């Protein structure tokens, strides 16, 4: 999918993506010549069609997680179905990330079926950016930047 600024005859570049949490999606594209921006807005059904393919509009920011599509798409699922094992990679930052009380409450509201995966993605996001405490605001930012629809 590419966007063309007709006036400038220039290909527009991807700017940002927003996922307000109601199933809709906004992807902003910008003309590098005149600076004009357009937002592509999808309704919940259109967003679902794309996410059902396991792909991200605007590109993928986080490497695909094991059973990511299944875990983020199943409604319900068995509690304790998955047990996340700690990462063994030696290249990971040793930074310790804390969760604020509000962020913990929000994480607890995520279905247990997918909670472990979501927790790891947010923690990795924070570590990579040197963030010591995850708050609901950080979660919102990560969700938008990483395109975590359904998480």
């Amino acid at each position: 999918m590419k966007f063309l600024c007709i006036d400038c005859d220039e290909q527009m570049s991807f700017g940002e993506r927003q996922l307000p949490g109601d199933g809709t999606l906004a992807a902003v594209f910008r003309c590098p010549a005149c600076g004009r921006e357009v937002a592509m807005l999808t309704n919940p059904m259109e967003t679902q069609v794309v996410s059902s393919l396991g792909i991200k509009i605007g590109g993928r920011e986080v490497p695909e997680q094991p059973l990511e599509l299944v875990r983020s798409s199943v409604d319900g699922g068995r509690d304790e179905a998955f047990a996340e094992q700690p990462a063994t990679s030696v290249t990971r930052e040793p930074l310790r990330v804390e969760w604020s009380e509000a962020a913990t409450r929000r994480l607890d509201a995520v279905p247990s079926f997918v909670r472990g995966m979501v927790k790891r993605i947010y923690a990795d996001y924070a570590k990579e950016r040197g963030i010591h405490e995850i708050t609901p605001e950080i979660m919102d930012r990560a969700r938008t930047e990483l395109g975590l629809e359904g998480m």
Partner: protein
Amino acid sequence: MRKIRTYADLEGPDSSGLGDQLVLQRRRVDRRMKTVGTVLGVASGKGGVGKSFVAATLASAFAHGGRSAGLLDADLNGPTAPSLLGLPRRSLSVTEDGVVPPVDSAGLRVFSTDLLLEDGEPLRWRGPAADGSLWLGALEKGAFREFLSDVSWGELDVLVVDLPPGAQRLVELAELVPKRTRALGLTIPTSASKVAVARSLRAAGDRGLPIAGLVENMSGYACGSCGDVGPLHPGDAGDALARELGLPLLARIPFDAEAGACAERGDMNGVLASRAGREIAALAGRLEQEGAP
């Protein structure tokens, strides 16, 4: 009319890279399946022919015969493999490599949506209720793809895939793992089954999928007392399909109440010791002779 440049005219990268993301998904499957010798898709055109029972017993026979074997229950909405194998529910370890499949006492590695759901809970997908038919098929295909690519199958001689009724998932399997997949067609003797199985196997054949052969299940009734096999279903679908499609009929498996009772309580050793189980173990041997696995 003004001339607007086309997608191909624009030289800049596709920043969403949707096509590239799909390619990467296929590569994940390729990488995982590199350590699997043969993927054996057990397929029928219709439900109720005992496909899950045959697939689970066949995979178990391979494992008991010393092969490294896996069983993927691809019937997402009607999963039965863990209960047939008597596997207890445990949390699945998720590592950087993937999801670790449970292993039964014979070393058989198993994956199924049953492991993800509460007892009796149907598989429900999140998404807008309206127009579900537009995205449900893609989601199920994606789940099947992830079961192939994201489960840490390890090195396997054979991965038996229990396919749901119909040709769709068999065709998807042929697309996802084109070089290693062979199909095994399963029918019961009736003419209705013959027609349905022929359709599925032709659809697979149209995509160049090799078919290892045919199995006729519920081929008579094995008496629990005297061991004689009496009539059960009318018809000769196994022989007729073999003639029509030019395929070997590799086994006739009688309906066996003892095997059914063992399967009901998850006793695969008991199944393999039964009359039906012995026929399926012999089928595993024939498949090995035929080169699959």
